[in-house]
């Protein structure tokens, strides 16, 4: 098998690809090739450069240097998905289907078969039926996309790709949204694609799946190519080790020991909510508690439920010893509990407004004097926040959307802190911001904890979880799989719990 595949010529080959966005380098001389009939997994931590590499392979990004070879010849891939014509199809994580249209209409969208100017529905239906039969998918061409399960939708995307004579199928975490049974169905269908000679590139954080389905594995770390190996030579544990293994610098502030006897400020028992399955934990005064796990493992859902942003189905939440199950966001805020969203552009800030209304929006009742908003007090708060959080803006009148990501994040932090919470939940505190700002935010979090504020840090970046948290809770598929303290907080341990290789029996 090994000898056989290496003998075949790669369909697509990336040679010494480097990529920078502006001054920020993301990929450093990465090489990867995809052969016909193989499943090639691409793994690495968040921010390792997987998405960028996929986009370069499919023509959505241009490499800054290096070349792409298609069937052994140097090629410049056409931009914006036009590479589909060359047989290279990227399937995004957010599927690209028209929900209200049928399977048949979606598959032929943009290149409908016509007969004398009218749509030839019979021919299109028959063609789609053939594809569905080939791939063994039990749906009708006339089914509406919105009625399908996630796995079926994913398969329709694949049928769409196959119908366009795809030779390379690049999939971004296709199994992230699938249940286990759906994943099995999905894998058996990927197997059929393989037999027909399609090369599949597959990104996943689920290392067991990678082991099961991939022929070869390429590992990226911090934009560097680490290794490409046959999956037979790798165990999931070995993969995890290769993905991580970087040293922590003084990016992180010195860790103060948390007082293990401090009062519990937040205790959650048997919480059930959408995406959350039987979660129990306690948060102490002055503690920095990390929540780790894969994207979609329920970390955000837990805290959205606790803070009143989504409904609680059952379970119990105690805030400072008082029952606080199913409180509203405003009640949570008044009780001293604040949630800082990871989605600062969509849920955190009003991008078309200036800094002042954004800063005070969360704590606005504090600024009301004689039924009116006290703009002088607001202005004072803004000046203070700009100094305290080092927010840099050209002038105070620019809209928040024009600030850099780091300054937006600092403003969002300032907005959340404006109500002086005693417990603050920070979801992805450093997503998409530069190292300097990261460091500022870590020091700020440490200083808060030293003042006696309890901080929950939800993060997909393991180094920051390890660098700043006193205790780490790992989640997977809606429930807690492990609680780590002290020396046990390391990337291997977290990865094992997060990937489902290890599970702590809780109570």
């Amino acid at each position, binding site marked *: 098998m090994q000898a056989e595949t290496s003998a075949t010529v790669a369909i697509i080959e990336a040679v010494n690809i480097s990529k920078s966005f502006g001054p920020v380098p993301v990929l450093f001389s990465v090489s990867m090739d995809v052969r016909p009939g193989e499943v090639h997994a691409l793994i690495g931590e968040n921010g390792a450069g997987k998405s960028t590499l996929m986009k370069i392979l499919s023509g959505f990004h241009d490499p800054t240097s290096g070349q792409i070879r298609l069937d052994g010849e140097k090629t410049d891939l056409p931009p914006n998905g036009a590479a589909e014509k060359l047989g290279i199809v990227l399937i995004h994580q957010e599927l690209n289907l028209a929900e209200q249209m049928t399977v048949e209409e979606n598959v032929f969208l943009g290149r409908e078969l016509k007969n004398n100017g009218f749509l030839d529905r019979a021919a299109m239906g028959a063609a789609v039926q053939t594809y569905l039969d080939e791939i063994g998918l039990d749906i009708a061409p006339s089914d509406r996309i919105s009625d399908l399960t996630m796995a079926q939708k994913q398969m329709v995307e694949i049928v769409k790709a196959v119908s366009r004579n795809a030779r390379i199928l690049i999939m971004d975490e296709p199994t992230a949204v699938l249940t286990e049974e759906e994943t099995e169905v999905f894998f058996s269908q990927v197997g059929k694609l393989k037999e027909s000679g399609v090369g599949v590139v597959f990104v996943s954080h689920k290392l067991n799946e990678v082991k099961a389905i991939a022929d070869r594995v390429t590992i990226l770390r911090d934009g560097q190519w680490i290794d490409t190996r046959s999956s037979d030579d790798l165990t999931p544990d070995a993969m995890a080790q290769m993905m991580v293994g970087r040293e922590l610098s003084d990016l992180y502030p010195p860790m103060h020991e948390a007082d293990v006897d401090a009062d519990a400020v937040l205790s959650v028992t048997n919480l059930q909510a959408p995406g959350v399955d039987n979660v129990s934990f306690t948060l102490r005064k002055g503690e920095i508690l990390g929540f780790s796990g894969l994207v979609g493992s329920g970390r955000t859902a837990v805290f959205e439920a606790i803070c009143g942003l989504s409904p609680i189905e059952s379970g119990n939440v105690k805030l400072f010893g008082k029952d606080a199950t199913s409180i509203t*966001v405003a009640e949570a805020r008044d009780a001293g509990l604040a949630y800082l969203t990871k989605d600062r552009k969509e*849920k955190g800030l*009003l*991008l078309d*407004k*200036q800094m002042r209304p954004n800063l005070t*929006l969360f704590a606005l*009742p504090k600024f009301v004097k004689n039924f*009116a908003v006290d703009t002088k007090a607001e202005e004072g708060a803004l000046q203070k926040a700009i100094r305290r959080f080092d927010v840099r803006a050209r002038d105070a009148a620019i809209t928040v959307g024009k600030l850099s990501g780091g300054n937006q994040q600092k403003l969002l932090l300032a907005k959340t802190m404006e109500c002086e919470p005693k417990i603050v939940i920070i979801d992805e505190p450093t997503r998409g911001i530069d190292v300097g700002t990261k460091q500022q935010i870590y020091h700020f979090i440490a200083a808060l904890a030293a003042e006696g504020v309890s901080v929950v840090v939800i993060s997909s970046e393991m180094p920051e979880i390890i660098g700043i948290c006193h205790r780490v809770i790992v989640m997977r598929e809606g429930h807690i799989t492990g609680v780590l303290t002290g020396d046990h907080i390391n990337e291997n341990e977290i990865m094992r719990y997060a990937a489902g290789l290890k599970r702590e029996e809780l109570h």
Partner: protein
Amino acid sequence: MTTASEEQGIKPAKRASVDLKTLGPAIALLILCIVGFMLNPAFISEGNLTNLLTRSAFIGIIAVGATFVITAGGIDLSVGSMAAAISGVMIIVMNNAIETMGTGIPTVLLGCGIAILLGIGAGWVNGALTTKGKIEAFIVTLGTMGIYRSLVTYFADGGTLSLNFDIRGTYRPVYYDSFMGLPFPVWVFIGVAICGWLLLNRTAFGRYCTAIGSNEAVAKYSAINVDRVKTLTYIIQGLCVSFATIIYVPRLGSASASTGVLWELEAIAAVIIGGTVLKGGYGRIGGTILGALILTTIGNILNFTDMISNYLNGTMQGLIIIVAVFLQRSDWKLGKSRKS
């Protein structure tokens, strides 16, 4: 310290650097007035100006309410029908109260009280269906528009509901009398406009409306009770409709299926001409008032001149709306750009 999003409308020229979006409606109104004066000097006679202001009061008051709804990202198409239905019920209630309460002021006050309750109730229905029922505002108010319109037709049995002649005598001054040289409807208009401006620009509620219209998810995550604020905007709209109805009923003393037809579109047009963004997030009460005045002035000028047929009133209004929005789209600014 004051910013573009705060200090709009009423005194647009306060800053050194201003832009066309803020000043546009004021300039347009000024140009219209000059055109009106040149076509017929009688345009600026006291009688005509008073008449113009009184006429614009109905649409203007309703448009102040519409500014809140639109700023918070909603829309209310039912206001014209709501005004008709409220007029109808008011007249029926007052006519029936004659036997017990006579034809004096108490009966008129009863009618006004009923109008206010109905306005609040109708607004609440629109708001609750939009927020709790999670139906799009356009659909909800399209539905209630039809319901209210057919109700008034039903109450009037296809004809006209007329207010008792004696009550009409008592009620008449509300539309026809003046205080300090200005007719009462104009005073109501001014009062509603000032309250609306303060509410939108100076209170937390106004800030919440803007935040919701700008991005509902951000508002939710900022501890704002989105459903309650949105429902309140519809209630404010209903209240404004009741005020407009209260000053409208004594004008004709009747209500029929054709009462308040197309008022919703005129109110929305006034709001948009005034610079409020139709998709929400940015509202200007001052602009809305100018918008209402512009719409009324066009009709007034056409009445004054033979150059364009009065029947083309709608055409002129339509053109003005399109031009106004076009000017707001393109970022033509005098001086430095200040807002999004």
